[in-house]
């Protein structure tokens, strides 16, 4: 079978089954099954596929996935996340569109604690959305910043997706995590600018505020009591890595411990909250890991059938320069990102992209950050965008998916601009 036919059978099969409404993991498993019979031969092929699957997921590198999710769920369900917002709210005082700014600032801080965009968006949405609605903010000024900032969680460390990307693409995980800090902060500054622009163009989007002055003492108290202790969580995750106590993979467990200890001190470690956090963790981590299991074997099949090697040779045959190669990859990622989840996209493209990166002499770290940003975009692009659905889950009844998409557009543009800057001027953002 030619590589084009193999690629069509495997890639087309997955897309067809997904479009049919088959759960993504089963779409992969079904195509794996067919592919194993066609390319590896009969029952032996299926058995091999299963053997490969056992190896794909019993990998220490995947440990942070459930742990970072557990950390975010605990922060959310114990109500500690809300406390941080209440405190920051007090500190910011009387500024127009205050809560929108707060979304970005608080969400960025939360991003340094949580590695999961889903958790971050759900947290921001469920804590801030009701309040903003009550105060008469326009829907677009509510939902845009929430989704945009929610997705920063996977750019700024800790990030389970960056860990996955690093280990799958054989990019130094520690370096990739650190390289995400500056782009993450730039993005969050851009988002603040977008909000400022938004209320400048359309002042009606945010209601005027009557200045309520909070005494400086009370501000300081709130900062000290509700925000500063979160430093413990940051230290547990990032500090222990820097001190050499724990590896990047291990530090996630200390993040969980730190959150639990803080919750205990605040008297919030109730069984109900813990139970909710645990079931939430199981649900999200199974959702992700089971797709890793299925799509890892999918990409092995893609390699065995000769499809990925053929595609690489074909793309390499155009002899695009490094910039054009990155642009072509970006286009592929955006296209796939409309239909697929991030993990599947990584599994599908990395075996093809990494050799090209090597061939073109592109800095893997530069590519890694661009890939992460492009994956961040995919979370909010229709028709399949996880964060769009998360948002719909917490938005008032009658909100359509297109309203959510429209709200996101200016923020997506920010990410796109940042990617283009990274393609041409990586030195501005990545210092090594």
């Amino acid at each position, binding site marked *: 079978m030619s590589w084009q036919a193999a690629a069509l059978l495997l890639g087309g099969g997955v897309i067809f*089954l997904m*479009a*049919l*409404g*088959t*759960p*993504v*993991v*089963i779409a992969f*498993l*079904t195509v794996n*099954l067919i592919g194993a019979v066609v390319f590896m031969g009969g*029952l032996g092929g*299926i*058995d091999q596929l*299963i*053997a490969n*699957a*056992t190896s794909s*997921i*019993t*990998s*220490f590198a*995947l*440990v942070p996935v*459930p*742990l970072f*999710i*557990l950390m975010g769920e605990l922060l959310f369900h114990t109500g500690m996340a809300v406390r941080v917002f209440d405190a920051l709210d007090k500190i910011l005082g009387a500024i127009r569109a205050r809560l929108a700014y707060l979304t970005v600032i608080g969400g960025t801080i939360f991003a340094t604690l949580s590695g999961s965009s*889903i*958790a971050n968006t*759900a947290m921001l949405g469920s804590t801030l959305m009701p309040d903003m609605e009550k105060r008469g903010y326009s829907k677009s000024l509510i939902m845009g910043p929430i989704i945009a900032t929610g997705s920063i969680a996977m750019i700024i460390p800790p990030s389970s997706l960056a860990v996955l990307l690093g280990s799958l693409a054989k990019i130094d995980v520690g370096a990739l995590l650190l390289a995400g800090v500056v782009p993450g902060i730039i993005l969050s500054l851009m988002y603040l600018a977008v909000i400022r622009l938004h209320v400048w163009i359309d002042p009606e989007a945010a209601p005027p505020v009557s200045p309520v002055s909070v005494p400086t003492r009370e501000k300081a108290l709130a900062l000290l009591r509700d925000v500063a202790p979160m430093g413990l969580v940051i230290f547990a995750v990032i500090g222990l890595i820097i001190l050499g*106590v*724990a590896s990047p993979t*291990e530090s*996630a*467990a*200390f993040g*969980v*411990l730190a959150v639990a200890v803080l919750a205990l001190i605040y008297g919030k470690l109730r069984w109900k909250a813990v139970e909710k956090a*645990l079931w*939430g*963790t*199981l*649900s*999200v*981590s*199974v*959702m992700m*890991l*089971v*797709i890793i*299991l299925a799509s890892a074997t999918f990409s092995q099949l893609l390699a065995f059938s000769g499809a990925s090697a053929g595609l690489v040779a074909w793309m390499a045959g155009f002899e695009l320069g490094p910039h054009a190669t990155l642009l072509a990859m970006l286009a592929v990622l955006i296209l796939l990102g409309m239909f697929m989840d991030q993990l599947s996209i990584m599994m599908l493209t990395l075996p093809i992209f990494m050799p090209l990166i090597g061939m073109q002499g592109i800095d893997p770290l530069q590519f890694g950050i661009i890939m992460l940003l492009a994956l961040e975009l995919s979370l909010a692009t*229709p*028709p*399949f965008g*996880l964060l769009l659905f*998360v948002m719909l*889950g917490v938005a008032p009844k009658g909100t359509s*998916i297109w309203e959510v998409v429209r709200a996101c557009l200016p923020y997506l543009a920010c990410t796109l601009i940042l990617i283009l800057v990274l393609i041409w001027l990586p030195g501005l953002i990545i210092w090594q």
Partner: protein
Amino acid sequence: MAILGKLYSGLIHVLAVLAVISILVATGLILGDVTMRYLGLGSIRASSTLIEYALLFSTMLGAPWLMRRRGHITVTSLVEQLPPAGRKAAGALALGISTVTLLILGWRSAMVGYDKFLRGGADIRSIAVPEWIAYGILATGFVLMGTECLRLILQRRFEPHGSVAA
């Protein structure tokens, strides 16, 4: 029959509880291992292997439960454009394919696992783990995911469905 149904539902739930426990055990093992290493007490030899297997346990034992909650990521946006009859047909087809795939995978996992059990090989990591265990867990997860799909077919619940939120 009703008792069997209850037992079956109970099994799905118990496995999910085990899956949650696996995640907690993994967390605890990392904390213990790092602390011991930091104090210069060495390291828990078994921990890295147990943690790696905990990932497989939590994923495959939690998967049937997530299937029951219809929480696996599913793209419903396209079939939702179809008229009701088309939607139902697509849903039935998707469920049929899912059932067949999962049951075949469950069957083969069990067969490979049985073969590994007879041969008695081990997966050597920081400690040795009998090879059949991984296959046994896969078989359990795949078969129960398959029966969950079958259950939806028998109940004629063809509407495509899938949670995407946390």
